[in-house]
C-alpha cells in the first residue's frame, strides 16, 4: 500500500514537472498563470496523498492551498485590466481607451 502511495506521489510530481515546463515556455502570460494554477491543484493532490502516507494533519495544509491557490489568479486578472483594478467582464471599460490593444499585446508576447 505504501509503495503504491509513493508511486502515486511520484506520478503527481511528474505532472507538476509538466506544468513547470509550461511555466517556462509560456508563450502567453495566461499560459504561465494557468500552469501555476495546475501546480496549485497538483500540490493539493500531493499533500492529500502525503497525508495518507505520513500524517492526516497534512490535510489541513492541503485545505489551505485549496482555499488560497485561486488568489493568485484574482491578482493576475486584476493586473490584466487597464487600470489594474477592474474586471475583464466589464463592458464598456470604465476608463476607455486602449483596452483592446493592451489585451492583444498582453496575450501576444507574454514576456
Amino acid at each position, binding site marked *: 500500500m505504501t509503495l503504491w502511495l509513493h508511486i502515486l506521489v*511520484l506520478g503527481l510530481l511528474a505532472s507538476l514537472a509538466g506544468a513547470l515546463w509550461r511555466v517556462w515556455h509560456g508563450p502567453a502570460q495566461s499560459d504561465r498563470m494557468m500552469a501555476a494554477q495546475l501546480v496549485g491543484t497538483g500540490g493539493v493532490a500531493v499533500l492529500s496523498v502525503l497525508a495518507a502516507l505520513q500524517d492526516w494533519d497534512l490535510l489541513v495544509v492541503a485545505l489551505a*492551498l485549496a482555499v488560497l*491557490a485561486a488568489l493568485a489568479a484574482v491578482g493576475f486578472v486584476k493586473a490584466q485590466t487597464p487600470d489594474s483594478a477592474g474586471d475583464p467582464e466589464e463592458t464598456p471599460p470604465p476608463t476607455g481607451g486602449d483596452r483592446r490593444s493592451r489585451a492583444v499585446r498582453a496575450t501576444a508576447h507574454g514576456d
Partner: protein
Amino acid sequence: MSLALDLALCGLILCVALGAVVGRGVFRSVIFFITYGLLLAIGWARLGAKDVALAEAAIGAGLTGVLLLTAHGRLRRMSVERAPRVGPNPMAATTGIAVALALGWAWFALPAPTAPDLAAALPLTGMGNPVTGVLLHFRAWDTLLESIVLLAALLGVWMLARDVDWHAPLGLRYHARPGGVLASFGRLLPPIGLSFGSYLVWAGADGTGGAFQGGTVLAAVVLVAMMAGVLPPPRVAQGGLRAALVVGPGVFLLSGLLAVALGMGFLTLPPAVAKPATLIIEVALTVSIAVTLAVLVIGPPDDKEPVR
C-alpha cells in the same frame, strides 16, 4: 522508494528556484516564485513540519502571489513595458552560495543543541501544540517583537503615500462587474475562508494551526473581498482600522506588563491561567495579523494614476 520521492521533490524545488532567478522576463520569474512557495510547502510537509508548511502555503501561495502580480501590473501601467536587461550578478551569486555553504557547514559542524525536554515543560503552557507553546511562552519576546515588526513594515509602506493622497482610501479603487465571476468569487470565498481561518486559530492551541496561519487566511479573505469591490477599502485615519492594527501587540504587551505588576517576570503566564490567557492573546494577535497583512498587500493610499 521514499528516497526517490524526496529526490524528485528536491530536484523540482531546485529547478523552480533556478527558473525564478535565471529567466529574463519579470512575469515568468513571478510565476516561478509562486510555484516555489507551493513546492516548499510540500517540502516542509514531507519533513513533518506541519505548522511551517501551513504558513508557507498561506504566505507563499496566497499573499505573495497577489502582491507580486499586482506589482507587475502596476509596472506595466506605468508603461515600464520591459524590465531592464539585467546581466548575471556575480556579487549576489557569490554571497548566496557563501551563505548556503556556511549554513550547511554550521548544520554539520556544530554540536546539536541540548534543549531542555520540551515534552516535560509543555504542560506548563496549557497548550497541546508544542509550536504554539514555544511561540507564546518560552519565546514570547520574539513573538511580541515580530508582531511589532509587521506594524513597522506597514508604516514603511504608508510613508510611500503622497501628502495629497493621505485621506484617500487605501490602495486602488477596485471594481468588478456586478454579478460577474469576480464579484461572485468575492462573495463565495469569504464564508469558507472565515470559517477555515477561525478554525486554524482555534485548532492551533492543540493541533496544526496558529495565530499567524489563521491570520494569513483571514487576510486573504479580506483581500479578495476588497479586490472584488465587495468591501470598501479603509482609510488611514479610520479609528477601527487603527484599533485592529494595534490590538494584538497591545494585548500581548499589556499581559506582559500585568505579569510584572503581579511580581512575575515580563511576559510570564502563570500555568493556572495559561490556556485562557494564551487564547485571548492569540485571538487579538490574529486580528492584528489579518488586518496588517491585508492592508500591506492593498498598499498605501493612492488617489490618482501614478505620475509618469
